[in-house]
Each structure stands twice: as C-alpha cells, then as structure tokens.
C-alpha cells in the first residue's frame, strides 16, 4: 500500500486506502490511526534526509564494522 508521504491523508482518504487493501475498517477505528500516522509523518519530516547513496545495506555494514572495531 502506498500513499504520498508529504501530504496528510484525510480520514476519508485513509479509510479508502485501508479498504482498498481488502481490509474492512469501521469509522471509529480511523481517527486514532490517522493521528498515529500524522505523528509518524511529522517525525519523518523532521528527521528523514537520507542521501541518494544511503542504502539499507549501509546500516547493516555499519553495525558489523563497528562491532569489528570493538573486537580489536
């Protein structure tokens, strides 16, 4: 499932998004989900600036390399 991460989804759009994944949702479930997603998006706007060459693999490499340094 995908949605634009630079725009807040309205509750209606969120309900449609969830329904389009084949999962039935009730109206009372939507508001808290929307709030949580809004908080995640706010954190992302604040923090997420990976460069084009930052890869997922770089993270695992850093974990292992730092561990190797600790062994030395």
């Amino acid at each position, binding site marked *: *499932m995908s949605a634009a991460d630079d725009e807040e989804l309205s509750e209606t759009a*969120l309900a449609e998004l969830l329904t389009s994944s084949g999962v039935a949702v009730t109206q009372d479930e939507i508001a808290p989900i929307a709030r949580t997603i809004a908080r995640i998006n706010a954190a992302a706007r604040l923090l997420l600036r990976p460069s084009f060459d930052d890869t997922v693999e*770089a993270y695992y490499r850093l974990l*292992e390399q730092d561990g190797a340094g600790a062994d030395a």
Partner: protein
Amino acid sequence: MTDPTALTLRAAAAAIAQGKLSAEALVEACLDRVERLQPALNCFINVTAERARKQARVADAAVKAGSALGPLHGVPLAHKDMFYRAGEVCTCGSKIRRDFVPDHTATVLARLDAAGAIEIGHLNMAEFAMGPTGHNEHYGRCRNPWNPDHITGGSSSGSGAAVAAGLAFGALGSDTGGSVRLPAAACGVVGIKPTLGRVSRYGTMPLSHSLDCIGVLARSVGDCARLLSLIAGPDARDGMASRRPVPDYEGGLDEAAQPGALAGVMIGIPNRYYFDDIDPEVAELIADSRGVLEKRGAKIVDVPVGDHGALNDLSNAVLWPEAAGLHLQWLRERPQDYAKQGRARLLVGLGVSSTLYGEALRARAGFLHELLRDAFSQCDVLHVPVLRRPVPTAAETDVGGGAAMQQVLGQIVANTRPFNFLGLPGLSVPIGLTRNGLPQAMQLVGRPFREDLLFRVGAAYEAAAGPFARPKL
C-alpha cells in the same frame, strides 16, 4: 537444600553437575510452584510437565553415568510461546494460531536443548508480540508477581513474570520495541536485547524483520550471560544472523564483581529526551544506580544525542508496515480473531506510505553513525531508565484502542524503542522498588556487539548492590 527454585540458574546447573541436586527434584519444585501460582499469575499458556519429568530422569541418569554435561544440564526453563518446536502447538499468544503446529524447531530452542536445558512450558505473551503491557484477550492477562494488579510489561509478559516468580530459571523472549527489557524491568529480573543479528531468528514468529531481536531473561546478570552465550552466533538457516564469533560473556564477570572493576569505563548520560518528564522516584533510583557504578570506578559523563523522541515515532514507520504485510491475509479473512489493540496497531501499518517506510530504513545508517560519533566517542555505555514512571496498574493501561491507548503505550516504550531502531544492545538491570512496591530498572546500552561490556557493567552493579529481592509469593 530448602528451596531450590531460589538458586540462580548458574548455581542450579552447578548443583546438578556436582550431584548435590537432582534434575528431577528441581523440575518437580518448579512444577509445584507453577501449579500453586498459575491461577494467580497466568504465566503459562501450556505446561509441558510430563515431557519435562521424562527429560529430568534422563538428565539424572546422565549425571550418574558420568556423561559429559552441557552448561544447562537439567535446568528448567520456559519460553515465550513464539519459538517453534516441531510437532508442538505454538500459539504466538493468538486465537489465529491457537492450533498451529510447526514442522521445524527454532535454532534457539535446539541450542538450549543441546546445552541440556529442560523446557517446562510455553509462556504467555501479547498477541503476536504486539503490545508492551502484558494484556492478552485470548489467554488472559499475565499478572505481575510483585502485585497482580500491575502490568508485567510486554510483550514477553510470561517470561518476565515466570522468572521473577521462580517458576523457571530463565526464559527466551523477543524484543522489537522493548519486549524483553520492559517485562524484565517491571518484574525485577535481568533482561538483554542483543545487537540486531546477534541471535538467529530461524523458527521464531516474525513481527518486524528489520527490528526483531531474540533475547533472554533471568534472575542475574551472570545467568543472562550464560543463556546468551549459548543461543548467540552464526546460523546457516538465518541469512540475517551475524557471522561474528561469540565472545565468552561469562568470562570476566568474577573480576567485574571486584571493587574498582569499572576503572576506565565511561558511562554516558544522554543530554536530552531519555529523562523528559521522569517521575521523581524513578529519577532518584536512577541517580542512585549511577552512584553505585561511580563507586565501582566508572566515570560519569554527559553525552549528546539527537532527537530520539522523533526517532521513537519513526520506528513505527518500519515496525507496523512490516507487521501489517505479514498479517495482511489474516486481516482480510479473520479480522474478528484479532484483539482490538493488536488490530489497531496493524492498521497503522497499512496506512504508512511505502516511500516513507523505505526512507526510514535508509536513514538508519545516518542515525546510528551520528550516535556512535557524538555519544559513543565519549563513553562506553549509555545509562538511562527503562521506564520513566513507576510500573502502572493494568487498569491504567486498559484503555481500548483509541488515542489514549496510543499515548500510554507511547510512554511505556519511549526509552526502549529508539535502541531497536538503531539496532543496539540493551541490558535491563533491576535497581530498586518505587513506593508502589514495584521494581524499576536501569538500561545499559552499548555499541554494536558489545554485550560483553554490558554484562561486565551490570555484574559490577549487581555485586555492589547485592542480589535483587524476590517477590513474596
């Protein structure tokens, strides 16, 4: 021997190996305790008593025959009900997998079996390991041995409560956002979440492949060190398990118990986030624990950290999309079989943008690099509370699936989740009781693969502070 369940895991293993205690007597002592306390605590989903008795008889025969014995020979353990054993039901704390029988055995269970451990049952847990409190709608709430009105912490609720109550000498748990460290802290036992990749996840229930870690809980630092040394290490059946060799975690713990053992060790106190709105009682206990480490020779320094509050929120951009992907088919076909809280969390995952998910994963290297450069260049270990407030009652956390629930749960995992996102090891060590009679814990966090140092610092603290109290049961 008056009450063998009061021994540490290592002492029990030594007593069996020396013929001072039989495995059968030890297993019976644990099973008697389970029978007496299970109605009040609800730690177990399934007790495998007969298999345990049979294994104990075999273990005693091996001692008498002078056979080579493993480091856990005859020691009763019990594990969170998410570790697969071929041919045995593994519920994952869920209704959906109430009758699930795996066809293979988890590497961690196989390694504990090979060390001679005896599994006495499967422990309660949050549904699919999705909650930090210990609630479970399907199997009933696991209750805290210090006071059953309070939460155990989760998701490894049964692991924390059973070890604290002396029903088992150690337990496996899993930690995706704090699920080993939180129940360890709330129940007054030691728990370690190792570095991401340190322990094989083959044959274990997945929640979030980028964050899941298998950890252990026991009643002392040394016991945790032994358990981790046995389950850690490369595994050809888990491509994400690190190939790094496993250090001798127990080696050096005796020296760590000596005065001055922490000379040269720098303990870092993060200069933001981890102490925000901390309860004064908790702050006092944490300051006292810092003082104990200082008296053992450690130097305390303030260290800078980034915006870990936002990092905490950001980890949800990884955890819940991965979990939702795993659960999508069941969410479509069996929505009524999820508890409301678990379902609410999974639905968040369906609403997170896939580009955001990818970006969050790519950004992890930068955040880890920043912490290593800014904080760990000045210290060896970070020292923070596991919880910022006294352990809450079940009623305080029993708030349905709405915004209030999200707020309470957010408070509980605030100090654990950032370290899952970063992949760093964290050791929870009990440090005292708050006025409500419930335990509190310090969290020691290290550089990648420095579990050995965390154990050393934890053991030094334990030696100075003495063994932690047990709940009166």
